[in-house]
C-alpha cells in the first residue's frame, strides 16, 4: 500500500507543466520479487509552443521536431518493446501501462489534416521519416498495418483544433528491438548518455533485461489559466533486470555451476551428504549496486536539469525503510525521503560518479506491490493449415469493482476472423459482457481487420473471448524469407475505462503477440516443376519433331536421293522433279 502511494506521488512530482524551456530526468528503482529490479527512466523536456513553431529549440531535439512539423503531427506516441511484463509476480505496470507498447514497435499519432487521404499521406511521411531517425522498419507500417482506433486511444495533449485531428495507429510485432534503436533514442536527450541517469543506459544490459520498453511521447500542453501552450516530450525507458544475471561480468557471462561450497544446502534432509545437496531457496534480498547492475557507473548529474526543488531529486529508490543503502560518491549529494521512508530520492553530484550500494540483507518486511486491475492472456488454439481460433482470457481480480474496458485487435489481412463465431463469456454471469462493437473487416492486400470491443467484467470473474479465423494462402512472392517461422500477430491492447486514471494518460495493458503459422508452399517446388516440364518438353517435343521432319528411306534408295548438305538437297529436289516428270 505504501509503495503504490509512493509511486503515485512520483508521478505527481513529474506532472507539472510550464511555459518555459525545461528539462528534467528521473530514475526510479524498485526491487521486485525473485531478485528482479525495475528501473524506470523518465526524461522530460518542454518547449514553448511559440518557439517550437519557429524551430527555435533548446531541449527538444531538432531532428524530431522538424519531422513532426513537416508531417503535421500534433501528438506522437512511439514504443519499442521486448519481452513481457509478469503481472502475477511484478504487480501493476509502471505508469499504469500508459508508457508501454506491444512486442516490437508500436506507433500512434494524431495528425492534422483536412481529409482522411491527406491524413494518411502525412502518416506515411511520418513513418518513413521516423524509420530513418530510429533505425527501425517503421516504413513497413503501410495501409495493411494501419488502423484508425475509435475507442482505444484518447489524446493526452490539449488540442485546439480537435476536429481536424486524425488518429492513426500501426504496429510491427515482428520488429526486433535492439541497440541500433537505443543509440538514436539516447541522441535525442540533451545530455546524450554522457551524464545524468542516461549514462547508465548500456545496450548490453538493457537488451538482456527480462522486459524492457522505450517510449517517446510528444504532446501539446496548455495552461488553462495563462492559456500559454508548450510542447512536451517525454522519453521513458522501463526495464526489469534479473539482478543475478545482470551482475555477471561482461567478460564472463556464462552461468557456470557454482562450486559446491558456495551453494547453500538443506542440511535437514536425511540424504544430505558431500555429493548430495538439496539447494535452499534464497530468502535474503540480493546485494547489488548501480555500477554492477547497469554495467557502467552513473556519471553525476546532467547539468541541464533543475538544480533545486523536487525535480532536482533525480534517482529514487522505492524500498522498505529497513533496507540499508550506502552511497558511494566523491561529490556532493542530497537525500530526501518521502512516503514514510519507502521512497528515497537522491540529488546527484555534478561531475562525480555516483553509486548506490545495497548489501545482501535478510528482510522482515517487504514492499506491497499494487495489484493490476486486469490480467490478460491470449493464445491461438487449434492446429492445421486452414483454420484456427483465438482465445483471450481476461481476469478481474478485484472482489468488489466491475471493470469496463476496450479491447482492440488489429489483425493482418491474411488472418480472417469469422465475426459470427465471436463469443464472450463471463464465468459468473450468463449476460453477455459486450457493450459496444466496432468492426472494420479486412480487404485482401489493402487493409487489416480492426476490431474494438467495449466490455464489462463483473468483480472476481474471468472473461473468455474466442473467435475462429481462416488462414489465407499468400502469393508465392508475398512470403518472407523465414516463411516457416509463421507470421506475427500484433498484441491486443486493453484500455480501462473504469476505474479510470487520474490523468489523461489512461490505464493500458497489452497481451503478448501471437505466432500464426500459415500454409507454406514447398519453395523448391517451382524449380522442380520447371526442370521436370522442360525435360518432358525436350524429350517429347524432340522426338515428335524428329519424326515429323525426317523421311525414312532404304539404304539403296539413298544413292538416288543423294547425300546431305545444300547440294544434296538441291540434287534431291531435282531428282524428285525428274521422277514426277518421268511419271507424268
Amino acid at each position, binding site marked *: 500500500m505504501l509503495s503504490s502511494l509512493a509511486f503515485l506521488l512520483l508521478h505527481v512530482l513529474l506532472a507539472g507543466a510550464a511555459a518555459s524551456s525545461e528539462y528534467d530526468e528521473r530514475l526510479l528503482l524498485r526491487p521486485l520479487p525473485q531478485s528482479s529490479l525495475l528501473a524506470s527512466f523518465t526524461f522530460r523536456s518542454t518547449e514553448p509552443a511559440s518557439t517550437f513553431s519557429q524551430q527555435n529549440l533548446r531541449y527538444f531535439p531538432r531532428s524530431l521536431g522538424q519531422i513532426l512539423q513537416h508531417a503535421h503531427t500534433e501528438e506522437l506516441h512511439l514504443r519499442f518493446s521486448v519481452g513481457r511484463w509478469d503481472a502475477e509476480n511484478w504487480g501493476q505496470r509502471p505508469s499504469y501501462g500508459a508508457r508501454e507498447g506491444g512486442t516490437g514497435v508500436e506507433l500512434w499519432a494524431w495528425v492534422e489534416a483536412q481529409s482522411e487521404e491527406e491524413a494518411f499521406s502525412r502518416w506515411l511521411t511520418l513513418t518513413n521519416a521516423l524509420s530513418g531517425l530510429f533505425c527501425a522498419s517503421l516504413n513497413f507500417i503501410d495501409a495493411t498495418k494501419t488502423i484508425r482506433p475509435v475507442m482505444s486511444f484518447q489524446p493526452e495533449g490539449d488540442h485546439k483544433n480537435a476536429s481536424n485531428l486524425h488518429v492513426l495507429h500501426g504496429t510491427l510485432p515482428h520488429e526486433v528491438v535492439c541497440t541500433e534503436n537505443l543509440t538514436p533514442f539516447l541522441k535525442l536527450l540533451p545530455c546524450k548518455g554522457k551524464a545524468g541517469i542516461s549514462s547508465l543506459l548500456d545496450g548490453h544490459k538493457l537488451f538482456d533485461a527480462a522486459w524492457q520498453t522505450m517510449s517517446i511521447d510528444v504532446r501539446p500542453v496548455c495552461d488553462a489559466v495563462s492559456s500559454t501552450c508548450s510542447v512536451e516530450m517525454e522519453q521513458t525507458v522501463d526495464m526489469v533486470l534479473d539482478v543475478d544475471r545482470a551482475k555477471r561480468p561482461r567478460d564472463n557471462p*556464462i*552461468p*557456470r*555451476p557454482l562450486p*559446491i561450497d558456495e551453494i547453500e544446502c538443506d542440511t535437514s534432509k536425511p*540424504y544430505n551428504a558431500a555429493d548430495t545437496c538439496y539447494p535452499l531457496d534464497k530468502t535474503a534480498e540480493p546485494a547489488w549496486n548501480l555500477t554492477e547492475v547497469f554495467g557502467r557507473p552513473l556519471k553525476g548529474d546532467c547539468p541541464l536539469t533543475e538544480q533545486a526543488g523536487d525535480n532536482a531529486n533525480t534517482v529514487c529508490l522505492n524500498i522498505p525503510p529497513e533496507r540499508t543503502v550506502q552511497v558511494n560518491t566523491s561529490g556532493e549529494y542530497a537525500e530526501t525521503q518521502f512516503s514514510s521512508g519507502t521512497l528515497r530520492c537522491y540529488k546527484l553530484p555534478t561531475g562525480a560518479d555516483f553509486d548506490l550500494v545495497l548489501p545482501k540483507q535478510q528482510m522482515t518486511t517487504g514492499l506491497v506491490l499494487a495489484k493490476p486491475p486486469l490480467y490478460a492472456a491470449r493464445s491461438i488454439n487449434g492446429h492445421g493449415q486452414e483454420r484456427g*481460433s483465438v482465445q483471450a482470457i481476461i481476469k478481474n481480480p478485484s472482489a468488489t469493482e466491475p471493470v469496463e474496458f476496450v479491447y482492440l485487435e488489429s489483425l493482418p489481412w491474411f488472418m480472417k476472423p469469422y465475426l459470427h463465431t465471436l463469443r464472450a463469456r463471463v464465468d459468473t454471469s450468463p449476460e453477455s459482457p459486450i457493450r459496444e462493437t466496432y468492426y472494420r473487416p479486412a480487404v485482401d492486400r489493402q487493409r487489416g481487420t480492426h476490431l474494438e470491443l467495449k466490455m464489462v467484467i463483473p468483480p472476481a470473474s474471468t472473461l473468455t473471448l474466442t473467435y475462429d479465423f481462416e488462414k489465407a494462402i499468400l502469393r508465392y512472392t508475398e512470403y518472407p524469407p523465414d516463411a516457416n517461422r509463421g507470421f506475427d500477430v500484433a498484441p491486443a491492447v486493453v484500455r480501462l475505462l473504469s476505474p479510470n486514471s487520474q490523468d489523461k494518460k489512461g490505464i493500458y495493458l497489452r497481451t*503478448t503477440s501471437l505466432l500464426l503459422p500459415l500454409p*507454406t508452399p514447398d519453395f523448391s517446388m517451382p524449380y522442380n516443376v520447371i526442370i521436370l516440364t522442360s525435360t518432358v518438353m525436350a524429350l517429347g517435343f524432340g522426338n515428335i519433331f524428329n519424326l515429323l521432319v525426317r*523421311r525414312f528411306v532404304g539404304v539403296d534408295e539413298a544413292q538416288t536421293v543423294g547425300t546431305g548438305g545444300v547440294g544434296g538437297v538441291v540434287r534431291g529436289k531435282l531428282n524428285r522433279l525428274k521422277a514426277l516428270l518421268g511419271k507424268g
Partner: protein
Amino acid sequence: MALLCKSRVRGVLRPLLIRAAATLLALRKDARLLKVPPYLSALCIVVGVAWLLVLPLDEYSRRTYVSENALLPGQVHTYFTGSEHNVFRAYRQETAALADKSVEERTQRLSTILGAHNLKVATQRYEYHASGRNISDQNVYAILQGPRADATEAVVLIAAWRNMDGKINYSGVALVLTLARYFKRWSLWSKDIIFLISGDSTSGTQAWVDAYHDSHSPDTIEPLSIKSGALQGAVAVDYPAGPWGHRYDKLHILYDGVNGQLSNLDLFNTAVSIANGQMGIGCTLQRMWNHDDSYHQRLQTMLRGMISQGLGHASGPHSSFIPYHIDAITLQTVGDGWHDEMSLGRTLESLFRSLNNLLEHLHQSFFFYLLLQANRFVSIGTYLPSAMLIAVNFSISAIALWVLSGRPQTPTPNPASTKPPQPDQQAGEKANEKEKEQDKPTFIVAEIAGAKTLIPASSLEITERPLFLPLTFVLATHFLGLLPLYLFNHTPLPYLSYTFTFVALTTTLLPLLTATSLAHFQRPTPQERTLIQCFSLLLLGMFLAALATLNFSLSFLVGLLAAPLSFARASRNKGLSAVVGGLLLLLNPVVVVWAATLYFGQDVVEVLVKAAEGWHVWGLWTQVVVWLVWWPAWFAGSVVVAGGLVS
C-alpha cells in the same frame, strides 16, 4: 546415312497409326490378354517385396545429414556439470521419496520444487475412459519464460512419471527438475522452455498437448491455466534408474508417433549427432541393441520400424505431439555401460541449445523416411514404389475381373479350326459329344465394301453386367466392418477376451454362412461373383494406394497380407475351393492378429486394451483400416471362394 529429312509426314504416319489402332482393337478381343493380369499382379507383388529388400543396400539408402543450418548440432560447449550433479542426486532422492505417495502429494511436491526455481507452475488433471477402465492422473508443468522471448515460441522437455513399461522414471524426472534450475540461469533462450512431468507416458502427454491446443474434451480434462507460444519441438527423457543411479550404455531414440507419423528427420539427426559426436554416447533405434551395420541388421531395423509405424501406436511420451506437427523424440537409456546422468543432461542441454537456434519451424528435412541405422535412411521417393506396386496389383486384378465379367459366358470357338476348341474337353469326350452338336457355333455374314466375312454370333453379343447385387454386397460388407470396430472399442476389459473369441469364430464362419444362404436364392451367379471380387479389389487397391502416402508401412503390411485375394477365384472344383478357402481362413484379419500376438509373445487382450485406449485417447486409425479396408476385402474374397464350395 540412309535417312533423309522430308516433310512427307501424313502419308507415312497415318497408315501406321491406323494399323496400330486396329491391332490394339483386335488385341482387346484376344483371349490371351486375360491370361496376363494374374501374372502381372504377381510380378507387382514380387517386385514390391524385392524392392523393399534391396533398400538396406548402400546403393539404395543414404547417410543422414542435418538439413537445417540453424541447428548447428554440438557446436556449443556444455556446462551442466559440477555442483549440478549434487543437486541432481538430491532431486533424485526427492523423486524416490514420492514413489509411494498419492498423486495429489506428488503433484504438490513437484510443483513446489519447480516453483522454487522461479518458474510459472501449473497442474492439469485428466481422466480418460477406455475398455471400461479409468485412466486418470495429473500433469505438472512449468514454463521458463525466455528472457528474450516474446511468448510466441516454446520447446518442451518432458519426463513422464511412469515410462512405457510402467516403471517410475526417477532419474528422468530428477534430471528435468535439475535442468529447469540450470536453464533458468541462462539468458540466451530465445524461446520459452516448458518442463512437463506428465502422469504417464501416453495419455498424460496427450491430455496436455490436446489442452494446449484447446482440442480436449472439457468434461474430463482440465484446461491449461497458463500457456506459452507455438510449440516448436519436444524432447522426452526416459531414465528409470532409482536413487542409487545406473550407468547406461546407449541412448535409444524413439521417433515414431501415433498413426505412423514421424518427427522431422533433422531432430533425430541432431540428437544422434550430439549424443554420438559430442558426448560419445552410442545411439540405437527400434530396440536393436547391438547393431553391427550388416545387411541383415539393417533390414531387421527397417522391418521393426515398419511394424511399429504400421501399428501406429504411441511409442513414448513424444508420440502425442507429432499429430500436432510438433516434432518430438524420446531419449531412452538402455544397457549397462559407463555413461551417467550428467552426460544425458549435457546431451539435453546441447539439444536445447540447438533447438533454441531454430529460426523457423523444422521443415527442411524429411518427414517420411525409413531408418536403417542411426545414420542411414531411405527417403519416401525410394521406398514408396514398393507399397504402390502392392496396391497396384489389386487394381490390375480388379480391371481384369471387370473385363472378364463383360465377356460372353460361352467361349467363342475358333471358326477355322477343326479341332475341339479347348483341350480339356477331350477328357470327357462322351459327354461333350452331344454338347458339341448342340453348341455348334452360329455365324453371321457381314459384308463390307463387297468383301464378305463370317463372324461368330457370340462375339457380337452384348453381355449385360448386373451391378445391383455386387455393389450392394460390397457396400454392405464395408459397413459391416463398423460392428466389430464398435464392439472392440467399447467392450469393457473383462469381456474383451470373450469378444475376441466370438468375433474370431463369427468372422471365420460368416463367409461360409453367407455363401450358403445366398446359394438358396441361386445367387450370386458366376458373373456376379466376378463383379463382387472386382469391386472389392478395386476399393482395396484405391484405399491402399491412398494409405501408402500417409502410412507406408500399414499400407504395405495390409497389402501383403491381402495379396492372395487377387488370385483367389471361385472354382467349380470343390477340392480346390476348399484348399483356397482354408488358406483364406488363415488370412482372416482376426486370425492374423492372433497369430501375430503369439509370434511376438504378446497377450491378445493387452493388445486390444491398447487399441481401445488408442482409439479413445490418441485418435488411433489403425483399427479403422483393419475393419473398414482390410476385413471387408477379405470377407468379400472369402464369400466368393466359399460360393464355389457350396454351389
